[in-house]
């Protein structure tokens, strides 16, 4: 049986904003570390993005996932934390929607379920970032595609493991 795609109760709406701010703060922290270590690949930041996009979509479903993504992208644009911030609007929205559409077909009890959902989320989200790398940073499309693919691979593996662990812990804690 398919899970519900939408959830519009107050808890989900407020949660989307609050967890969206947590997402934003953690993105800024990991983004600054990435600037020092791997300014082109953004492995930590990409993983953080994938993890939060998945977690929020699992916890509060839609439109909470989109709202949290928009909060992160809008503040990223206004604080200039990345030259690609404008493309985060699309990456966060499309990535979250894709994750929800895939996740609703699974129980999300197994790691493989999380990996499948993260593949969809990372591929669509990182494609938007690839467009940003081409239009804003003026990278060659092949290089842009390779760097995005690397970020996506790391994001899929690490974010799936983290999502399973953290979402499981949150379900057990009865905080959701």
């Amino acid at each position: 049986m398919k899970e519900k795609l939408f959830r519009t109760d107050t808890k989900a709406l407020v949660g989307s904003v609050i967890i969206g701010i947590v997402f934003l703060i953690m993105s800024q922290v990991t983004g600054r570390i990435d600037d020092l270590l791997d300014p082109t690949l953004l492995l930590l930041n990409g993983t953080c993005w994938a993890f939060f996009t998945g977690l929020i979509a699992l916890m509060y479903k839609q439109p909470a996932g989109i709202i949290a993504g928009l909060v992160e992208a809008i503040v990223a644009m206004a604080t200039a934390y990345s030259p690609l911030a404008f493309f985060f609007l699309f990456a966060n929205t499309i990535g979250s929607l894709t994750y929800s559409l895939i996740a609703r077909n699974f129980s999300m009890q197994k790691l493989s379920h999380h990996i499948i959902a993260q593949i969809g989320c990372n591929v669509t989200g990182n494609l938007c970032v690839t467009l940003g790398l081409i239009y804003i940073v003026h990278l060659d499309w092949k290089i842009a595609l390779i760097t995005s693919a690397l970020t996506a691979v790391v994001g899929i593996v690490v974010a799936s493991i983290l999502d399973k662990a953290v979402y499981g812990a949150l379900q057990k804690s009865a905080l959701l």
Partner: protein
Amino acid sequence: MALAKLDPRTKLAWYILMLYFALSLQSAARLGFVLVVCLLASLILTGSLKLHKVMVVIVLLLGLQILVVQLIFCRQGVLLWQWGILKIYSEALPLTITGILKSTIIFYASMQFFTSASAQEFTLMLIKFKIPYRFAMLVGLAVRFLPLLKTEYVSIIDSQRTRGLKMENVWDEIKAILPTFLPFLYRAVRRSTEIALAMELKGYGRSASRTFSSDLEIKGYDVALITMMLLVICFSLVYRLLPLL
């Protein structure tokens, strides 16, 4: 201050116009002109550019990121210098400048728009766009909780440091992400549950519509400005698309 008199919808139209130019223009000279216009608009409407001093440092950091990327990956133009696999081509600098100008316009226009009105004005603007108030009012919530959660994260870092967590270099900071982030996330989830309950107890979402203490009224000059900006976008699109037809 003239800026306060403008309707948020006019500011939104200006923001869209700037984004359109930042994404559609390709030459550094044109992008530079758009940035100057953007700065002049700020100067005319607010009377000062003092607030934007901080922007210089941020733009420099942003520029540095783009420069590093271009120096590593740019393969256009003539090879100027080579050291092992690192090759620097002549087109790296012009492309960096264009990239910096595009990012600066997007960042500056975003900063201009999001600092130009209060959270309530943004909420009212969303209401005017027929967005249900349960969603529109989340703007105020985000503005209120951003500094609070930031302070909470700093206090979690401090308490973990007191317990002996090292944060002296980048490697330490990477190792500190999980021990600081997990308590932060769980506290945020608990806080959101409490806030949602408090809001529902105060009647949030009970009725389909609600009243506000103030309202937005679009003036004649706002309509004229929005029309002008939309016409500029339309003419520009037609000018671009005509050679293709």
